[in-house]
């Protein structure tokens, strides 16, 4: 198995430079893979896939007929990030999340940013994620977006850009942890030699953060993970995180509000709950505050929340800053709250409700990617260069009818990575989703994050629901970490009279 015939085809490749030489830090990996006997890599790839199936690391796919379980396709060649490069990303993400948290808090309270004319009021108030019942809320420690999974992409110029801020219930972190486990099993020697920053302490960090934001005065706060149930596509992740943190995984029917407090039903009666990491949409949390037809929700939860009886992560209403229209203003938001320039830039964005932008978009549909602001998961999208004339005309009609609901961005030449295809490597496009924990004491960025790969040749869509897979992401250590010496122990006892 060798990289000899691998062609970057003019794209920015994460492992090889334009001349086809390994990038710094990747040479060791490439040497080792090149040295593997014929078909050994395929064998390890198969073993990794079998392990995923046996571990039941699957997601649910809904089709017309029945719901089936699939493994999230996993490619065995890791993506490598240099320590220095990562440092910049980490600073940029911390900056961005801090500004967005201030923005959300402002929107639901004083609305200074609107009054100062930085962002139009109607644009914020008409955002899909804006929640009226959240006006005036003061979440514990002033934190709204505790957990974020920001989507980054690297363009042909080698620069990173923010593609999307996922501030509601970003998923995928469990795959980061499981991918890492698989890679340690599959390539122990390479892993050992490369000195990769660890990701395994994410659940501990998450638990610490959740306990930090508990309502004031609570000792030994009880945190839970709230899942919509086993039929949710991300159920594996919900149970995985609960298991790794050692906290209960609850469903709506396990919870109730009793005398103003949030409780769970246990074999010994009711027990109070202090912090809820909810993996359920705002709309379904409380039929009294949001959608009345929600069967999954807990009546009275929002009331208990607004009285400070329980903490919710993320807070309801954070979706307002996750709107694709609001996204266009994030550089201004960062400047407004922090007085700084963004460290990581937005992808240049044309807002179709601005006349000039709309005109440009309509004239250049064949060069742009058009996105509906209230859709996610790769749906409601037009990829101009790959679309037919009829599809472009259809989008032109929609944009003219509802300009508020569309943005457009240039088609990026997303960076690529080598992926194992049958018996050789081919380049495939990737993005990167790092996870950020925004706590009351500190902000933690998981080194690396989820690298999603568009496994279909030439495709730019990395979503798992549309043929995407993932890779382990290695952030290398800046310098060799010092090894610690362990104390010497006594020898174990042996049976008397035995041969040795």
């Amino acid at each position, binding site marked *: 198995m060798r990289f000899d015939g691998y062609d970057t085809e003019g794209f920015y490749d994460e492992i090889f430079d334009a001349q086809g030489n390994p990038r710094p830090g990747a040479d060791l990996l490439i040497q080792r893979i090149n040295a593997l006997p014929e078909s050994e890599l395929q064998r390890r790839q198969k073993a990794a896939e079998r392990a995923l*199936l*046996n*571990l*039941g690391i699957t997601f649910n796919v809904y089709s017309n007929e029945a719901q089936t379980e699939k493994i999230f396709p996993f490619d065995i060649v890791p993506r490598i990030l240099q320590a220095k490069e990562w440092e910049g990303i980490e600073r940029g993400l911390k900056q961005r999340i801090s500004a967005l948290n201030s923005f959300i808090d402002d929107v639901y309270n004083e609305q200074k940013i609107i009054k100062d004319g930085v962002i139009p009021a109607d644009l914020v108030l008409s955002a899909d994620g804006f929640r009226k019942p959240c006006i005036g809320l003061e979440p514990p420690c002033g934190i709204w977006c505790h957990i974020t999974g920001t989507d980054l992409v690297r363009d042909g110029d080698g620069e990173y850009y923010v593609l999307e801020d996922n501030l509601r219930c970003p998923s995928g972190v469990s795959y980061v942890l499981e991918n890492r486990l698989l890679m340690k099993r599959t390539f122990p020697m390479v892993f050992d030699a490369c000195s990769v920053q660890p990701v395994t302490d994410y659940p501990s960090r998450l638990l610490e953060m959740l306990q930090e934001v508990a309502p004031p005065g609570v000792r030994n706060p009880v945190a839970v*993970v709230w899942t919509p*149930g*086993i039929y949710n596509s991300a*159920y*594996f992740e*919900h*149970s*995985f*995180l*609960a*298991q790794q943190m050692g*906290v*209960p*995984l*609850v*469903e709506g*029917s*396990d919870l109730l509000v*009793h005398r103003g407090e949030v409780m*769970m*039903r*246990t*074999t010994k*009666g*009711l027990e109070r709950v202090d912090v809820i990491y909810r993996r359920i949409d705002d709309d379904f949390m409380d039929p009294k505050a949001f959608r009345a037809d929600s069967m999954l929700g807990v009546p009275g939860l929002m009331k208990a929340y607004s009285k400070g009886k329980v903490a919710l992560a993320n807070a309801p209403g954070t979706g307002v800053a996750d709107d694709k229209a609001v996204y266009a203003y994030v550089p201004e938001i960062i400047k407004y709250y922090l007085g700084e320039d963004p460290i990581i830039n937005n992808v240049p964005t044309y807002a179709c409700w601005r006349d000039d932008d709309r005109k440009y978009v309509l004239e250049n549909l064949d060069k742009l990617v058009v996105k509906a602001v209230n859709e996610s998961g790769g749906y409601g999208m037009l990829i101009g260069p790959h679309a037919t004339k009829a599809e472009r005309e259809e989008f032109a009609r929609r944009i003219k009818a509802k300009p508020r609901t569309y943005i457009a961005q240039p088609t990026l030449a997303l960076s690529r990575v080598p992926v194992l295809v049958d018996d050789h490597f081919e380049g495939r496009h990737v993005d990167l989703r790092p996870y950020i924990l925004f706590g009351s004491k500190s902000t933690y960025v998981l080194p690396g994050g989820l690298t999603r790969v568009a496994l279909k040749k030439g495709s730019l869509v990395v979503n798992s629901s549309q043929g995407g897979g993932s890779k382990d992401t290695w952030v290398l250590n800046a310098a060799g970490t010092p090894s610690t010496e362990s104390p010497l122990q006594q020898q174990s006892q042996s049976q008397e009279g035995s041969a040795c």
Partner: protein
Amino acid sequence: MLSRVANSIYWLNRYIERAENVARFIDANYHMTLDSPDAAGDQWQPLINTSGDHELFEKLYGEASRENAIEFLVFDRNNPNSIYSCVRAARENARSVREYISSEMWEQLNTFYLMINNAAKEVSLDLPHQFFVDIMTASHAFIGITDSTMNHGEGWHFGRMGRMLERADKTTRILDVKYFILLPSVDYVGSSYDNIFWGALLRSASAFEMYRKRHGRIDPKKIVEFLMLDPHFPRAVHFCIVTAMISMNNITGSPRGTYCNKAEQSLGRLLAEFNFASLEDIFSFGLHEYLDSTQTRINAVGAEIQKVFFSPQLADEAAASSPLV
């Protein structure tokens, strides 16, 4: 712990135990029919009867044959107590409490399910014995993994209590298989076939060697005593009920010999019965009748456990829902 989680752990253990025991039934029966002369060979209907699902069977298949009995008891998705259905239900329960159990437990159960699921696709039963042994081994591995990777706390006790009640019920049914088979053929009693049948019966409960150590000669009465009343053999009904009671006391915190709810009370009464039962009592009551009444009482304990631990209602909830529903 959450009531829902306790419920799932209890049932996932019951379902695994049930799958294992169905495998035992069939394996024992299969061997008996291979060893028996023609007249006694066709013993599949009694087996269906002992499973308790004879009505469903008749609706789906009509008359019992080896092929359709095995299909029904092993792979049939329409039979909620087939091995496939049990393992699937166990896995679904485990999936809903994956955060509570250890990942080793989940992985074992998931692999078990994938094995049955693949076998169901192949439907080749050339070597049924090995297949049934694999099922028993998978179940034993699950118990061992559970014991050595999960906290022996409340959840573990719910699991063990479920498994013990299920096993007690199934051991009574294994004894009943013999009852049904030998009743019409009194001629065999005391013959070499009788020895073969009883030996097969003991083997199906993994009891043959342990019985030999305890009682030596094959003696039907001693076998009944061993499987019903032995306090040390882990598949004996008495042993199972003693162990279930220990778990129950651990869950409630009640001292031995006392109770604090109806589930604990009904299990305690059943235990008292077995603590003081004698072989003479059982035979004077009638073996089949005694087995049947034991099953009924185990079911009653199960129903109380459901009420007390898994679907407790708050006083105001009960008041709100009772007049209308």
